[in-house]
């Protein structure tokens, strides 16, 4: 039971993280290769605050706020540079974050931060909290997709210049996407720090950024159910199958490559194709009757 709860928390945090990147990369089309930096910002901020004696929920929100603020700053970069340039810039932000944290003693340097205080919640209630937040983020994502903002994001992702031409304030929507996505990632970071009780720079490096991106991409960039499914699977599979722990990264790499090579729309695209095939097989029957 204890183990199942631990896995559940891990899964929930991964879903929150993947959905947060999906807002930026999936909805708004801004590929980010440094998402773990914001996850890390939230984790460090929240951990330092509860260590200073502040209540857990205040720390959690402050972590999200700080990550969102940093995200807004990086979002400003997305107004300057586009496409491949932006991908490399966000990757640079990720390396910069790690590079700075490593050299700061007050952030624990290489050693990280130990003995992060207890939240006051039992393991079970913590799981409930994480899953509730994950559900809220999922509902929020679905709501955004159907709103005017979702339409604007779509337009920006599709073709920035055309979007601008039909009167969409491209800069505002890009910044909104970055601020929302990174704040939610910061929230996930605060949850992670208070689940594991220890954080270090290595948990928020480039590999982590790629893991988050692979959840989004494998699930199907932009698809909420696809991303949730991929995040749940990719976070828990290596834990369940301990014998493949040695090959975990290899599988991630091959999976990322194979999905892009053979089905760039991810699980969502595969599901769509299957669904269409089933419908097509049923169609003549319908016509006959």
């Amino acid at each position, binding site marked *: 039971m204890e183990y199942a709860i631990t896995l559940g928390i891990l899964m929930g945090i991964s879903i929150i993280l993947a959905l947060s990147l999906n807002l930026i990369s999936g909805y708004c089309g801004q590929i980010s290769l440094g998402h773990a930096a914001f996850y890390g910002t939230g984790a460090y901020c929240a951990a330092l605050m509860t260590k200073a004696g502040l209540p857990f929920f205040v720390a959690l929100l402050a972590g999200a706020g700080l990550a969102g603020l940093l995200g807004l700053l990086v979002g400003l970069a997305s107004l300057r540079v586009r496409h491949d340039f932006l991908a490399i810039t966000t990757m640079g932000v990720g390396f910069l974050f790690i590079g700075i944290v490593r050299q700061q003693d007050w952030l624990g340097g290489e050693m990280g931060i130990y003995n992060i205080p207890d939240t006051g919640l039992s393991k079970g209630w913590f799981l409930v909290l994480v899953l509730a937040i994950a559900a809220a983020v999922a509902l929020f994502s679905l709501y955004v997709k159907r709103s005017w903002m979702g339409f604007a994001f779509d337009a920006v992702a599709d073709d920035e210049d055309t979007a601008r031409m039909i009167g969409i304030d491209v800069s505002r929507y890009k910044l909104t996407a970055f601020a929302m996505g990174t704040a939610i990632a910061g929230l996930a970071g605060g949850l992670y720090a208070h689940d594991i009780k220890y954080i270090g720079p290595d948990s928020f490096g480039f590999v982590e950024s790629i893991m988050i991106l692979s959840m989004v991409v494998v699930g199907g960039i932009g698809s909420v159910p696809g991303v949730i499914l991929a995040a749940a699977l990719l976070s828990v599979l290596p834990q369940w199958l301990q014998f493949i722990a040695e090959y975990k990264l290899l599988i991630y790499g091959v999976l990322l*490559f194979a999905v892009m090579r053979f089905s760039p729309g991810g699980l969502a695209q595969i599901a769509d194709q299957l669904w269409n095939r089933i419908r097509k097989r049923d169609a003549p029957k319908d016509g006959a009757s």
Partner: protein
Amino acid sequence: MLAYELMVQGLVQGSIYALIAVGLTLVYGLLRILHVAHAGLFTLGGYLCVLITNATGSFLLSMLIAMPVVGVLGIVIYRLCYQPILDKPPYVALIASIGLFIAMEEIFRLVFGPYGISYAEPPLSNSIQVFTANLREAELVTLAGSLVLIGGLALLAAKTRIGVAWRATVTDPEMAQSFGIDIIKVRYLNFFIGSALAAAAGGLVAVLNNLVEPTMGSVPSYKALAIIVLGGLGDVRGTLIAALALGVIESFGTIYLGAILDRDAIAFAFLILVLMVRPQGLFGKA
């Protein structure tokens, strides 16, 4: 005195970056793909050089074998991995390439072990006095080797028919095709040369550090991306200058900025600074 030594160290590192980044920028110029897996070929080049040198005792021979072998592998990667997804949005190839690179690193780790391998007898380990600094032979060979290789490349591009076809294809693929240039062959050549240069860089790094490890490609890989972005994506001259500049900046930065940033973050701090002022890179055209 210190400045001179730092400068030389920076140039040695910079010429390694240049050898890696040239291949990357060639691929970008031709296909608009950020070829992250390029650094996997760099690592493979390093491993081949160490293994062949240990087996035969000749460093030169190992280079002569590793470069064409890795070059052909570069063509294979293009043919099997990139060609089918060229018409997809750019992030598709980028993420596919990152996936491929992670898989390659893991294969190196599983095949050759996590701790890396060294030369049985490190080649080029003597020191030579040049002006006031003691340089190792390996460092001189790195400088000279990259000069010869990149000079040869420049000559090939400027003076031969192949070079003309190549430059024509980069400038305008459709026009080049209508003049009867086989652009598929040009792409093959592109990947062959770029990958062979990366293998040479791998071999030189193996001698400089007397060590090859599965992860030796990751930092150069991402830094090379920063370099080609700085150089203006696809611009070979800009890339070379950016590579040497970064080598020197890092070499000085480690001394003077070490308290705030670690070495590997300097490249990206520099990158972000430059891009905010010039979004098209240092030497790119707007």
